[in-house]
C-alpha cells in the first residue's frame, strides 16, 4: 500500500458574498497516493480549483473552510495558520498555474527565482543552491542552463517559462504538486512535451500530482485516476480506464460525448443542455438533475450517495440504485477507437 500524501475528508468550502453564501465545494472526499497522478475534471465553476486552493490554504479572504479535514502526509493541516502553511508551500506541497508569467517575477533572473525556493526551504549555501537550481533546469529540459541562468522570464517562450515554473515548484522536493490548468494556454506540441515532463518527473521522484483541467485528451495521457466534479461535488471517481471506457454517471456521459473525437465516430456532436445551478442555496437533490435526460423523480429530492462499482470506481447517481430502471450508457468508448 503506497503512502497517502493528500487526504480530503468531507471538505466543504464557501465564499461569503453580498448575494449570500456560495457553497463552492460541498463535501469532497479524495485521497492521492505517492507517485499517483489524479486528474480533477469538470466545467468552470465546479469547484476543482477551489478544492486545490483550500488544500494549500490559498483561499481569498471571503472564502473559508466550512467543514471537513485536510491531511498532508498523514498530518491534519486543516487549521494551520499562515506561518505553518508558509513552511509547507513550496516545501512539501507546491502549485503551478495556467499563466507562468503571473507566477514568475518579471525582473528577477530565472536561476535566482529557483534559488529563492531553496534558501527558504532547505538550508543551502549559495553554491549548493546554484548547483541544485542548474540541476532542476536541466531536469525540466532547458538546454544550456548555465547560459540561461541569469536571464529574466521575458527571454523565454511560453513553454520554456512553464518549464521554469515547474523547476521552481519542484526545487525543494515536494511530495505533492497541484497543477491548475498548467497546460491549457500552451500550443499542442508544447503541451504534449510538458505532460511528458510531468510523467517523467513522477517516475523519477515518486511525487503525487493533482492535475486540474478540462481537457480530457490530456487527462487520458497522464491520469492514473480521474475525479469528475459537478457543482462542488465529486460525481464519479475511478481509474482512467474506468472513467473513459465504463463511465456510469450521466454527467460523465455528457462530458465525453461533447468531444469532437467521439462525435466523429458517432455522427453528431452532442452537448449538455443548460447551465450548472447557482451555488447560493444549491438544489436539495442531485445538482445535475435539471440537465440530466435520465433524471429520476428522486434526483430532485435527495442527494444520491456514492455507489461502489469496484475497489476504485464509484459514482453518485440514483441510476445505480437497484430499484432504478436499467439504462444502457449512451456512449461506450472502446480502447483503440482512434
Amino acid at each position, binding site marked *: 500500500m503506497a503512502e497517502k500524501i493528500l487526504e480530503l475528508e468531507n471538505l466543504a468550502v464557501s465564499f461569503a458574498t453580498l448575494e449570500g453564501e456560495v457553497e463552492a465545494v460541498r463535501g469532497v472526499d479524495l485521497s492521492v497516493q505517492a507517485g499517483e497522478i489524479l486528474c480533477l475534471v469538470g466545467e468552470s465553476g465546479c469547484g476543482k480549483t477551489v478544492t486545490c486552493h483550500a488544500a494549500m490554504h490559498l483561499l481569498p479572504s471571503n472564502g473559508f473552510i466550512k467543514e471537513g479535514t485536510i491531511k498532508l502526509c498523514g498530518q491534519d493541516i486543516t487549521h494551520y495558520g499562515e506561518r505553518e502553511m508558509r513552511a509547507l508551500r513550496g516545501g512539501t506541497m507546491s502549485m503551478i498555474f495556467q499563466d507562468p508569467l503571473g507566477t514568475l517575477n518579471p525582473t528577477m533572473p530565472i536561476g535566482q527565482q529557483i534559488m529563492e525556493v531553496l534558501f527558504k526551504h532547505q538550508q543551502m549555501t549559495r553554491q549548493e543552491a546554484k548547483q541544485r537550481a542548474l540541476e532542476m533546469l536541466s531536469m525540466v529540459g532547458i538546454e544550456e542552463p548555465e547560459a540561461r541562468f541569469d536571464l529574466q522570464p521575458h527571454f523565454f517562450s511560453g513553454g520554456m517559462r512553464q518549464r521554469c515554473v515547474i523547476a521552481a515548484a519542484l526545487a525543494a522536493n515536494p511530495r505533492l504538486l497541484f497543477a491548475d490548468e498548467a497546460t491549457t494556454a500552451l500550443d*499542442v*506540441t*508544447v503541451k504534449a512535451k510538458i505532460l511528458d515532463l510531468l510523467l517523467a518527473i513522477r517516475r523519477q521522484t515518486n511525487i503525487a500530482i493533482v492535475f486540474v483541467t*478540462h481537457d480530457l485528451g490530456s487527462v487520458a495521457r497522464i491520469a492514473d485516476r480521474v475525479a469528475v466534479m459537478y457543482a462542488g461535488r465529486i460525481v464519479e471517481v475511478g481509474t482512467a480506464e474506468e472513467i*473513459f471506457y465504463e463511465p456510469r454517471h450521466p454527467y460523465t456521459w455528457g462530458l465525453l460525448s461533447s468531444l*469532437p473525437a467521439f462525435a466523429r465516430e458517432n455522427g453528431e*456532436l452532442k452537448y449538455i443542455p443548460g447551465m450548472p445551478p447557482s451555488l447560493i442555496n444549491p438544489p436539495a437533490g442531485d445538482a445535475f438533475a435539471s440537465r440530466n435526460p435520465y433524471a429520476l423523480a428522486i434526483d430532485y429530492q435527495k442527494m444520491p450517495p456514492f455507489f461502489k462499482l469496484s475497489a476504485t470506481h464509484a459514482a453518485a447517481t440514483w441510476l445505480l440504485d437497484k430499484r432504478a430502471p436499467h439504462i444502457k450508457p449512451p456512449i461506450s468508448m472502446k*480502447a*483503440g477507437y*482512434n
Partner: protein
Amino acid sequence: MDNAIMLELRKVSQHFYIHKNLTVKAVDELDLTIRRGEVLGLVGESGCGKSTVARMIAGIYQPTAGELVFGGRGKPRVQLIFQDSAAALNPRMSVAEIILEPLRIQGQDYKSPAIRRRMAELMEQVGLAERLAGKLPGELSGGQRQRAAIARSLMVQPELLVADEPIASLDISRQAQIISLMQRLQKAYNFTLLFIAHDLSVVRYISQRTGVMLKGKLVELAPTEELFGHPEHPYTKALLSAIPVPDPLYERQKQILDYDTRQPLGREMCEKRPGHFVRVS
C-alpha cells in the same frame, strides 16, 4: 458545394516592420484557394500567421505583397468572428443593437418590421432567448456573447464567414454547442466557412479541407480525412501526434514525434495525390 473558386490568395505576404533591423514575416508568400460553399480549416500553433490570414481576407490588413483574386461572382461579402467575444462587442450596446449594427453601418433601414422579424428569427436560430435582446454583453455568458456575434455576422447574409478561434475561450460544454451551431447554420445558409483553430480535433470534425500553417507559410493542404489519415509533411505528422485523444490505453503508448522548426520548410507546394498538397524542397 459547387467547387467554383470564391477567393484565391496568390503569393500573399504580410510583413510587419518593427524597426530597422527587424521585420516580422507574419504571412509569407501564401497560396490558398477557397471554394464556394466549403468548410476550410486552418490550423497551426501560435504565431504561425493564421489570424493574419483571416484579417487579410476580411480586409482589415492589406497584404504587403501578392494579391487576393476573387472568383466569378466578384468580391464576396465577408464577416469575421473573433475569439474574444467580450472585446468584439460594444459593451454599451444592447444585443439587438449589436445584431442590427452592420445594417445601420451599411445605411439600410434597420428599423423596418421585416428586419425586426429577421433578427428575431436569427436570435432563435442561434439559441438566444428573445428576452436577451435588451441585455448588454456584460450581462451575458461567454457562450451567449459568441452566439450574439454569430447572429450579427449572419444579419448581412455573408458569403464567406471567417471564424478565428471562435471557441478557444469557451468552457468545454459550451464549445460543443457553438461548433454544432456553426455547422447547422453553415448547412442552412450554405455560406463558405474558413474555420481557424489550434484545436485540431475540432477542425477535423467541422472542415472538409484542412491547411496546416507554419512560420507564415502553408506546409500541407488536403481533404481533412486524407490529411489526418495520411499526413505527409514532417511538421504535420508531429502536430498530429501531439493531439491528445480521449483514450487512455492509446495515449499511454503513443509516441510523440519531434519536429525542429529551425529546419527549412521546403520551397514549393507539390500535389502528392489529387487535392493533397505538401511543401517539398
